[in-house]
C-alpha cells in the first residue's frame, strides 16, 4: 500500500527489514523521530531492544557492543552527536563490529543551525577518529532510496565487519514522499560473526594481530592486520559502486551533486550533465576519473565549503569549480547564478 512516508521513517523501516534488533540514540534534531519510532517499536516487539542513551558517546559504544553480542544494531545522530561518536567509530573498526551509524547532517560547526540542512560532515566520516580506518558511507536522495540504502548499509556492514555510515540531511529526514515500502524487495545479508559467549576471544582497540592477541610493539603484525582490514573494506565497497549519471546533450560541463542538492538541481539536467555519487566513501575514484575525462569543466555543488570537491580534485587530478551552499541556503535560483558566475570567470 502506498503511503506518505518521511525519510526518517524509511530509514527506520529499512533497518527493521535488514533485521536490526537494537537501536540506541540520544535526541537531536533532525533524527529525534527515529528515536521515537524505535521506542514505540520496542514496546510492541520484545525481540527489539531500545536504549535512550545518556549521550552519543554511550550510544555509539552501545551500538558496537550490542553488535558484538550478536544483534544487528544501529544508531542515529546529527553532526554534533557524530562528533562525539568518533571515538567509537575508530573502536568499531578495530574490533570489527558490523553495525550502522546514521548521520543526518545539519549546519555546523558545533550547534550551528539545528534545523537547517547541510552536507558538511563528509570529512568527519573518514577523519574524525584516531588512526587509519576505511569506512564505507552511502548517501540517498529520496525517501525510497533511504529505505533501500539503509538495507544496503546493513549488508555492507555484515560483509565488511565494520560500522557503515548512512548519511542523510535535515531536509531528507523530514521529506515526505509517497512510497510503498512493503513492495520494495531487497536482499538481506545474515549475521555471520560469532556472537559473544561462545569462546575465548578478546575484542580490543589495542593493536592486535589477526588472532586477537594484543601486540603493542610489533609493526609487522600491525601492518598485516591493517592491510587485511583495508583489503576487506575496499573489497566490499567495490561491490557497491553506487552512483547516478545523466549525460546532458552536448554539454561540456559536469555538475556533481549528491543528497538533497542533487534533488534541487535536477531541473538543470536539461542544460548540464549531472553526476550523483551515492557511495560517498570510499570515493568513487575510477568512475569519477572516467566520467570527468569527457568534460571541460567540473562544478561541485554541495552543502559545505568544498569537502567533496577536494576529493574530486584528488580523484581526477584536475581543478574543479565549487558552489558551496552554506547555512542551509539551497535555492535553485541562487545555485544557477553561481554556476553562471563560475563559468563567467573561466570563459
Amino acid at each position, binding site marked *: 500500500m502506498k503511503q506518505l512516508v518521511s525519510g526518517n521513517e524509511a530509514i527506520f523501516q529499512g533497518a527493521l527489514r535488514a533485521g536490526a*534488533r*537494537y537501536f*540506541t540514540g540520544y535526541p537531536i534534531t533532525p533524527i529525534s523521530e527515529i528515536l521515537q519510532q524505535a521506542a514505540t517499536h520496542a514496546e510492541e516487539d520484545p525481540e527489539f*531492544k531500545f*536504549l535512550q*542513551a*545518556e*549521550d552519543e*558517546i*554511550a550510544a555509539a*559504544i*552501545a*551500538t*558496537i*557492543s*550490542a553488535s*558484538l*553480542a*550478536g*544483534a544487528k*544494531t544501529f544508531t542515529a545522530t546529527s553532526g554534533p552527536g557524530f562528533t562525539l561518536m568518533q*571515538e*567509537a567509530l*575508530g*573502536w568499531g573498526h578495530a*574490533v570489527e563490529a558490523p553495525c550502522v551509524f546514521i548521520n543526518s547532517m545539519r549546519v555546523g560547526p558545533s550547534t550551528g543551525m539545528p534545523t537547517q540542512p547541510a552536507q558538511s560532515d563528509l570529512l568527519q566520516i573518514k577523519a574524525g577518529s584516531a588512526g587509519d580506518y576505511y569506512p564505507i558511507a552511502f548517501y540517498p536522495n529520496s525517501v525510497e532510496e533511504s529505505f533501500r540504502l539503509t538495507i544496503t548499509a546493513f549488508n555492507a556492514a555484515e560483509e565488511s565487519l565494520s560500522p557503515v555510515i548512512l548519511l542523510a540531511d535535515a531536509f531528507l529526514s523530514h521529506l515526505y514522499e509517497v512510497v510503498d515500502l512493503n513492495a520494495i524487495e531487497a536482499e538481506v545479508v545474515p549475521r555471520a560473526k560469532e*556472537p*559473544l*559467549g*561462545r*569462546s*575465548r*576471544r*578478546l*575484542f*580490543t*582497540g*589495542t593493536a592486535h594481530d589477526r588472532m586477537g592477541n*594484543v601486540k603493542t610493539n610489533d609493526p609487522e603484525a600491525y601492518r598485516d592486520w591493517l592491510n587485511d582490514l583495508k583489503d576487506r573494506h575496499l573489497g566490499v565497497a567495490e561491490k557497491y559502486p553506487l552512483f547516478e549519471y545523466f549525460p546532458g546533450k552536448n554539454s561540456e560541463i559536469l555538475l556533481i551533486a549528491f543528497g538533497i542538492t542533487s534533488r534541487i538541481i535536477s531541473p538543470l539536467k536539461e542544460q548540464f550533465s549531472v553526476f550523483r555519487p551515492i557511495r560517498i566513501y570510499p570515493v568513487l575514484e575510477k568512475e569519477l576519473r572516467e566520467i570527468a575525462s569527457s568534460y571541460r569543466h567540473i562544478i561541485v555543488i554541495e552543502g559545505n565549503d568544498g569537502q567533496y570537491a577536494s576529493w574530486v580534485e584528488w580523484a581526477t587530478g584536475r581543478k574543479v569549480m565549487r558552489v558551496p551552499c552554506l547555512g542551509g541556503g539551497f535555492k535553485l535560483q541562487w545555485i544557477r547564478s553561481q554556476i553562471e558566475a563560475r563559468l563567467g570567470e573561466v570563459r
Partner: protein
Amino acid sequence: MIDRSYKKLLKLNRFPHTWCPGCGIGAVLKNVAIGLKELGWNEQNTTVVSGIGCSGRMAGYMNLDAVHTPHGRALTAAEAIKTVRPDLNVIVLSGDGDLGSIGGNHLLHTFRRNPDITVFCNDNEIYGLTGGQAGPTTPEGTKTITSPRGEHHQPLRLNRILTAKSPCFYARTTVYHVNHFKTCIREALLYKGFSFVDIISDCIELNGRRLGFKTAHQMFKWFDERFHIVEGVRDHLENDELGIVKKEAEVEVKAEAKTEVEGKLEVLIEGLKLLTLEELKHFDGTNGKPIYIGYKGNVYDISASPLFQGEKRMRCHIAGKDLTRDIETAPHGEDLVYHFPMVGRLKVKAEAEK
C-alpha cells in the same frame, strides 16, 4: 586440598601478567576468577568487559570472551551486551579513573538504569598506566605528579553516590581483607541488578613509593589502618568502612509485589546446601576456604567478619562448628549471626542416615 580449578579461567599462557611487582590488580584478577569458578561461570555463559588503564588489562587475561572498550566506556558496553543477551553473565573489570572520571556519566546512568551487571573496580586512588597522576578517588592532600603540593579537591565518594537510590548494591573491600573480598565478590555476582564492588587496591609502583611505602604489604597494612570492616548488610557506608550496602527496590506493598518477593525467597532457600556436621567442619577458613558456622539448624558464612581477616584468620577457632549452644549463652545474642549471609542448612543425624 585447595581448589585451584579457577586457573582454567585465566589465560596462563600469557602469564606473567603485565602489572608491576606487588600490584593489587593481580589479586583482583585472581579472586574474581575464583568467585566465577565457584559459581560455575565459564566461557559459555559469561562475558567480561574492561576499559582502559592498568586495570583495564584484566579482561585480556580472562579465558572468556572479552571486550576491551575505549577509555571509560566499559559500563555502556556491558549494559548493551546484557540487553541483547540476557542469557550472558556480564562482568566489568576496570579502574577507578576509567569508571569514575572519564566514564563518570556512564556510571551515573548505568547505575540509574540498574542493568544486571557486576562491576569490579580496582580502586588504586591514582591513574596508574599514565604514570601516577591524581585521579577522581585520590584523597585530598595526596601528593601525586599532577598535585605536587597535595591534591586540592575532594575525592569522588563512590560509597555515597552509588548508594543514593534503591535498589542498589555497593560493596567496598580491599585486596588485603581477602575473606571479606571474596564474600563481596560472591554476593555481588549473585545480586540481580547493578552491583558495584569498590576494591581498594595498591598501585605500589607509582603511588605507594611516593607515599613512602617500600613494599605492597606495607600498603596493605595502611589499608588496614584506614579502613575497618562493618558486618552485615548496611544501608550506607562511612568513608572509612568496608562492607556491603544492599537496598531493595522501594515497592509499594501491593498484593502482587508481595508474592513476587516471596517467590524469590523460596528459590533462595531451595538453593541452599545441606551440610552435615562433618562437612561443616571442613569450612574452617584454612586453605582459602570460607568460614562457616552452624546456628539453629542453619549455616552462616562469617568469612567477612573483621575478626577473621588477614593473618588473624588462623586464630579462628570457632569455625566449622555448630554454635547454637555457645551463642545462646553469649552476651551479644543472636542478632550478630543474622548479619551474615546464610549459605546452607544443617543436616541432622537422623536425616543424614536416610
